[in-house]
């Protein structure tokens, strides 16, 4: 199978790849968001703790 035929998905390229693309987007977001939130929390908390010590 050529790469072109593979990506063409027998004429259903739009439906198949949109489905996979949206799934990828949602799955990546659900991992990245909590990690970013944790980093933000740690940064903010560090500032708060310093203020209390001083």
């Amino acid at each position: 199978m050529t790469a072109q035929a593979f990506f063409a998905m027998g004429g259903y390229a739009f439906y198949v790849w949109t489905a996979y693309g949206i799934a990828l987007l949602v799955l990546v977001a659900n991992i990245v968001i909590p990690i970013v939130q944790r980093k933000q929390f740690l940064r903010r908390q560090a500032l708060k703790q310093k203020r209390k010590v001083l």
Partner: protein
Amino acid sequence: MFLIPDSVVRFFHRLASPPHFYAFTEQLMPWLAAAFLLVTLAGLYGGLYLAPPDYQQGDSYRIIYIHVPSAWMSLFIYVIMAIAGAIGLIWRIKLAEIVAISSAPVGAGFTFIALVTGSLWGKPMWGTWWVWDARLTSELILLFLYLGVIGLYGAIEDKRVASKAVAILALVGVVNIPIIHYSVEWWNTLHQGPTVTKMDKPSIHVTMLVPLLLMALSFKLYYLIAMLQRARTELLRRERNSQWVRTMVVENEQ
């Protein structure tokens, strides 16, 4: 408890302690990620490349490899969320509450994926993006249940109270789960019946079945990873005034 070895009991006792849970999940993460990548790549290779096109649906059926596992996960995660919520409600175990609420966004994500990929599969095969039939409507209600859980938790300031409210909502919503599962049998519907979870032989060829099961395993591993990431963040927020979090915040700065 005499049936369970002492070491196993000790393991779970320690896991229920927040600092130990936080450290343990950190060590666990690379192994989960490696297993997830391996299984996912194998599943996608099998599903998108090795498996032949369907004799009726051509290549459009390949949406099945994300659609069906996502739909399974949307139900599976809901049940886990309700069970964890119930454990939190009865025994007041903080980590059970955290597992319950951390499951909600992951479950909502899978429900959304199941709905959207179903729509993208329905358009070329049924000729429509959406119909208000039993299967699709009950799955949409599931999405609203997840969003309701997330919204309710966010709206209540005291997170122990919020967890109680969320657990009750999740438990009430459990009635929707068998409705979704049996909707294709109880009502006349455009949605096709189950091909894998039938009591007799699955009506799907093994070259198509293996990648589907691999993707199902892949999404289970993904759920563990994503849920634990949420749980770790939520745990820090809730325990912000405890000594172990304060120490970690200082260590994290250096």
